[in-house]
């Protein structure tokens, strides 16, 4: 459904709601919130893995949206614009949490014990067809923060490595490397869960 035609709960289309919100219409604000809250919150929650923090970040993202909505010109889809705003809010928050002396690359790099193990010469059953999404969500939540952020941005939210590198202030190579490690870690986690299940634990 195109942006113009999406009809939201209050009978407004999204385009109408955006126009009205630019003029300070309260109902329009509420309508836009209702339409996008789930996606923004889910993004925040997946990135920080903490409900209180995710709620605060959701709140901040929407407040920034409402403050800046008059600058939205329609060059991209509204949801894309909001989404990028939400990602920036989360990244700013994560930067503030990191100690100033620690570089973002260092923050992204988990402790050695969290790094995935190399998987060499040990043929095993593949995961293909055996991942259920509940387990995948759980496994993502258990990832170390650095891996989780890159995984969420690339594989779930669809950002390219060059975009992630720009947002995170890291290199494209670093982004690719972290993503690979995140997937390896998920693979470990999901295989372990599957092994536990078949052992009847």
């Amino acid at each position, binding site marked *: 459904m195109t942006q113009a035609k999406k009809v939201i709960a209050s009978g407004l289309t999204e385009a109408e709601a955006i126009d009205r919100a630019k003029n300070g219409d309260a109902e329009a604000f509420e309508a836009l919130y209702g339409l996008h809250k789930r996606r923004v919150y889910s993004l925040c929650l997946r990135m920080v893995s*903490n409900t*209180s923090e995710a709620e605060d970040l959701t709140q901040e993202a929407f407040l920034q949206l409402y403050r800046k909505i008059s600058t939205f010109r329609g060059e991209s889809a509204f949801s894309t614009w909001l989404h990028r705003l939400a990602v920036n809010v989360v990244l700013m928050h994560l930067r503030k949490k990191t100690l100033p002396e620690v570089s973002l690359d260092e923050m992204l790099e988990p402790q050695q014990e969290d790094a995935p193990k190399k998987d060499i010469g040990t043929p095993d059953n593949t995961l293909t067809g055996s991942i259920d999404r509940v387990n995948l969500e759980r496994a993502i939540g258990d990832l170390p923060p650095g891996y989780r952020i890159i995984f969420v941005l690339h594989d779930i939210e669809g950002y390219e490595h060059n975009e992630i590198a720009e947002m995170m202030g890291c290199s494209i190579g670093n982004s690719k490397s972290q993503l690979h490690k995140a997937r390896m870690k998920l693979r470990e986690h999901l295989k372990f869960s599957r092994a536990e299940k078949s052992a009847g634990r």
Partner: protein
Amino acid sequence: MTNLTRTAYMAALLVVGANLAAAGATRQSRLNLGPGAVLTVVTSGGSVSLHPGTEQQVIVNSTTHSDRVEADVHATPDGKRGEVVTHVLSQQGASADDLRVDYDIAVPPGISVTLSTATAPITVQGVSGDISISSDTGQITVRQISKSHLHVRGVTAPVTLTDVIGTHVDITSTGGAVQLTQVSGPTVEVRTASGRITYNGDFAGGGHYLLSTHDAPIDVFMPAFASVDLTARSSTGAVDPPELPLEKKEHTNVLPAPGRSFTGTSHSGSASVELHSYSGRIRIKKQP
């Protein structure tokens, strides 16, 4: 001991045990919150007591009186936020007593606290961080606070402040009476619609004081040495002649109305004091 006696003894023990169980189950939780952190408390019935602690952690003792409620106490891993929330698990057939949770909370210095209740009385004493209180009808009592920010909102909640010094005070209680004793600070503002306002103190520190109601009386008791620049006005009510010697002044923004307004200064007029009641009675008396 005969069988009958033994049975009676066991029955008595059971009754005592049941009563003790009904009297409440207390659980202690500890939160690691750093300086500058915010603690939020949300509850409905019961009571909340907030006071300084001797340890670096926030210590929450929560007492429930039935299994229909639970106290949820948690903090964010970064130590910036803590929450104490009462969850009602099952409301059907529950009495008000069943849904009560009593909280006793000890906080280290530098923690800001936000308290929200419906009917639970709140007592805050001696803490040093900023305090924000919201209560529908539960009595609010604040004592011995200094150099802080205190923000209070109530529907009909009575509010009592005692020994609150050097603090920015902002109180709005639509229908609750507000009583201030030895309260001073850079700004002290109290607004009610029908809640009576009583101020007992010397307006120390040269700040700005505003006591405003719709139709309730305002009573001010102050010592002779208080240094104030005072304006009192009641649009359709009355302003009694002050019992203290205040030198009358002509203020350009106060319309002279006999018996309904007064402006005057005592000593150097350090503190600016405004008393407004739309239709209530305003009295300025000497402290006994």
